[in-house]
């Protein structure tokens, strides 16, 4: 088979698997698990084959036009360069891991068939986004992901948190998608085509008339999808979904799409220095803010969610300094360790019977109960904190190196100011990342108090996936010297300055956190354990759904995050009150407008409607009065009318004849 055929099969297989899963889900439950895992696995293998054949060389382009679409043609096209090939492999691998993990995690869930089908559809949509060479087809995948995220985040729709979270995810991303759509149209109209190659050619020849406007409109959509400030608020709430879905959204699909899109169209953004600066500021605010917020969260998954936002900030920062190689490199390594973190967190929540860090810090021996999750999570947290030689170190260094070069004027893709912003924010975030990673680890696995309950070993489907993902988290960074060829050719290797600065700051953050934790732990007495879920022995998915209901324990004085943040803690725990800002800025005006519309509809529009009805009714009343039942009256009226008509006719005839 040609590489093109294989590439077409990559998104098609999960889609067919999804359709088959939805069709057979009820009638043939035995086929659901193979139908969920095998197409995704096959897609991952095929993506790997495509990547091997493409080999980071010349981009593969193929296009077919199904039907003429007016002035701007829309093609079904592929554009596979090194970025697309590698990201597709990543999506395939992560999706396969998530599917395998889900077979164990949602073992007894009655809604597993539709869940698995939606995950497959999600994967398929992301692969369409990755491979598509046409912006309109890309948009199709982009929007399918939006709706899939709505359904998957709302998987536990019995709980009000999940319902509102899924709605919020959908609405916030749509808020970004509207300007995104307009931006795509503006771009297509300027370039005269929706083909990515054509758009890039138009950019190179200076054919885009309003690069800043287009770039800023597109950035709004990217901010929504990739959870950048100020549209990031849906991501922490999306933790109400099942953990594998969080892993999928955070690692491979949804949030990666925004970064990947910018990476694909980077020349469009680079054509506008203003857009690059905006992107840099956005990335910087996102990084630092999410780091502070992560330090204050009590829900283990919310900590990870804020860390995802921060790492996406790194990628956006890399793009802001014009180095898409570094951005996609960090995307790949982050996907590996973040998927691992979430999947391991799922195991932790299952074992602990709670998602609260405070509650976990009051039980000891959690590490012994789930050794696989303990070790792999440790690896992933080290990678997250960018400790050499784990994957996160190399990719983060690549970002910082690009920022440093831009700041010092060695690269001129982006303004130097953007470079400085990204560099400073990145270094600060390195400190924060190490702090909250260590806080998470200490409070989860180094708790003091009664023994954690024993629920037996985790299913093999879950633990094996953890170890599979631990390999790239550990070793992906070592491929750094070979990855250059796949991307733009910039070296991604760390330089001494940034390595020392970054690692030093990370180490400082870790040391401070550890010292604070030790001090606080020595001072605070061991308190009574907090309540657990009702069915701690049930399957993991159900435990998590029940854990969503548990009240989080009161503020724990032993929390190092609290001491570190000081007065900022309250604001950071609440996501810097951004939700309240949104409520004031959007929700209240919308509700007021809705009540205004209701008033207009009830009092103004309905007046006309009821007036029409009442006038007809009044006429009917009059006519009804005439219905006396007396035939003579009717006949009189009839004949009188006839006489009048006859007289009129004769008079008219006379008048005409006389005229």
């Amino acid at each position: 088979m040609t590489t093109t055929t294989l590439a077409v099969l990559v998104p098609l297989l999960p889609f067919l698997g999804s359709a088959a899963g939805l069709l057979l889900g009820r009638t043939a439950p035995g086929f659901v698990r193979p139908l969920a895992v095998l197409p995704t696995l096959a897609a991952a293998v095929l993506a790997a084959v495509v990547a091997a054949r493409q080999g980071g060389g010349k981009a593969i382009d193929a296009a077919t036009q199904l039907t003429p679409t007016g002035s701007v043609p829309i093609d079904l096209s592929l554009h596979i360069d090194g970025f697309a090939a590698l990201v597709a492999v990543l999506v395939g691998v992560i999706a396969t891991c998530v599917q395998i993990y889900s077979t164990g995690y949602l073992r007894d869930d009655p809604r597993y068939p539709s869940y698995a089908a939606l995950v497959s559809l999600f994967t398929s949509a992301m692969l369409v986004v990755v491979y598509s060479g046409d912006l309109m087809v890309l948009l199709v995948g982009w929007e399918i992901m939006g709706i899939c995220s709505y359904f998957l985040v709302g998987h536990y729709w019995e709980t009000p948190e999940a319902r509102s979270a899924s709605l919020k995810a959908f609405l916030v991303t749509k808020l970004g998608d509207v300007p995104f759509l307009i931006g795509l149209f503006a771009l297509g109209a300027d370039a005269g085509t929706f083909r990515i190659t054509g758009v890039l050619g138009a950019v190179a020849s200076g054919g885009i008339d309003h690069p800043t406007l287009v770039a800023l409109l597109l950035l709004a959509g990217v901010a929504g999808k990739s959870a950048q400030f100020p549209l990031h608020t849906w991501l922490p709430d999306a933790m109400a979904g099942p953990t594998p879905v969080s892993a999928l959204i955070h690692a491979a699909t949804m949030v990666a799409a925004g970064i990947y899109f910018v990476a694909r169209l980077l020349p469009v953004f680079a054509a506008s220095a203003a857009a690059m600066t905006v992107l840099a500021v956005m990335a910087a605010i996102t990084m630092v803010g999410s780091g502070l917020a992560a330090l204050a969260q009590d829900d283990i998954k919310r900590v990870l969610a804020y860390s995802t936002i921060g790492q996406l900030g790194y990628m956006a920062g890399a793009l802001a300094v014009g180095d898409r190689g570094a951005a996609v490199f960090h995307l790949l390594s982050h996907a590996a360790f973040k998927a691992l973190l979430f999947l391991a967190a799922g195991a932790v929540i299952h074992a602990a019977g709670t998602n609260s860090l405070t509650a976990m810090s009051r039980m000891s021996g959690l590490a012994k109960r789930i050794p696989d999750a303990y070790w792999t999570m440790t690896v992933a947290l080290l990678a997250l904190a960018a400790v050499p030689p784990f994957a996160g170190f190399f990719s983060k260094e690549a970002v910082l190196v690009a920022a440093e070069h831009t700041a010092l004027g060695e690269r001129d893709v982006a303004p130097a100011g953007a470079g400085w912003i990204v560099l400073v924010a990145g270094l600060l975030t390195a400190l924060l990342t190490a702090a909250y990673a260590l806080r998470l680890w200490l409070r989860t696995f180094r708790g003091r108090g009664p023994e954690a309950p024993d629920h037996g070993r985790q299913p093999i489907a879950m633990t094996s996936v953890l170890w599979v993902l631990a390999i790239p988290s550990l070793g992906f960074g070592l491929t750094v010297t070979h990855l250059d060829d796949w991307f733009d050719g910039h070296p991604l290797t760390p330089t001494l300055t940034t390595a020392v600065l970054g690692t030093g700051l990370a180490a400082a953050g870790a040391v401070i956190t550890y010292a604070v934790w030790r001090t606080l732990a020595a001072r605070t007495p061991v308190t009574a354990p907090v309540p657990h879920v009702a069915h701690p022995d049930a399957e993991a998915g159900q435990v998590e759904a029940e854990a969503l209901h548990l009240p989080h324990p009161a503020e724990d004085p032993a929390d190092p995050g609290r001491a570190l943040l000081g007065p900022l803690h309250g604001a950071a725990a609440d996501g810097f009150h951004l939700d309240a800002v949104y409520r004031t800025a959007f929700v209240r005006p919308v509700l007021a407008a809705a009540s205004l519309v209701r008033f207009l509809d009830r009092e103004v529009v309905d007046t006309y409607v009821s007036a029409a009805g009442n006038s007809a009714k009044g006429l009917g009343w009059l006519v009804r009065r005439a219905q006396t039942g007396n035939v003579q009256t009717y006949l009189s009226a009839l004949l009188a009318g006839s006489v009048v008509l006859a007289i009129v006719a004769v008079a008219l005839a006379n008048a005409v004849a006389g005229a």
Partner: protein
Amino acid sequence: MTLAAEAARTAAHGFLSPTGVEVAFLLVGLATLGAALLTVTTRQLVHAALWLVVALGGLAVEYLLLTAEFIAWVQVLIYVGSVVVLLLFGLMLTKAPVGRSPDADSGNRPVALAVALAAAAALVWVVVDAFRTTWIDLDGPAQGSTDVMGQILFQHWVLPFEALSVLLLAALVGAIVLSRKKKEDES
């Protein structure tokens, strides 16, 4: 028709010099109209039927004056002989009061008067306006003799004539069915 020819014809007939037939027609017509008026205004129901006989008989005379002999005899035979008799039977069967009945007219009378007057005025106006200068030529053989009518009726109008016989049969059957007493319902 040119104006000259019209003036000549007017002169030939004389507008205010009526012939004997015209005078007879006018007098019988007045009697007929009076009888008709009494028919629709009298408060004694049986008298109304009798005045109707007068009006219908007067009309028969008018047919004779118009040389339609056969129609005149049919008028007398059918209307005066059978229809009025039927109406009288109807009056008797519905227990119509003999003598003056004060409620012979309904409350619709003013409206009826207005409509009738308007219709009469309009029709008379139109008819007079249209036939101001038209005369019927009554000379020559009678146009409605029994001989002529028989020939015409059974040569040219035989099919409608036969259809009419079917209609009469249907009316006969219908009248019997309608007026028959339903025994099972009354029990």
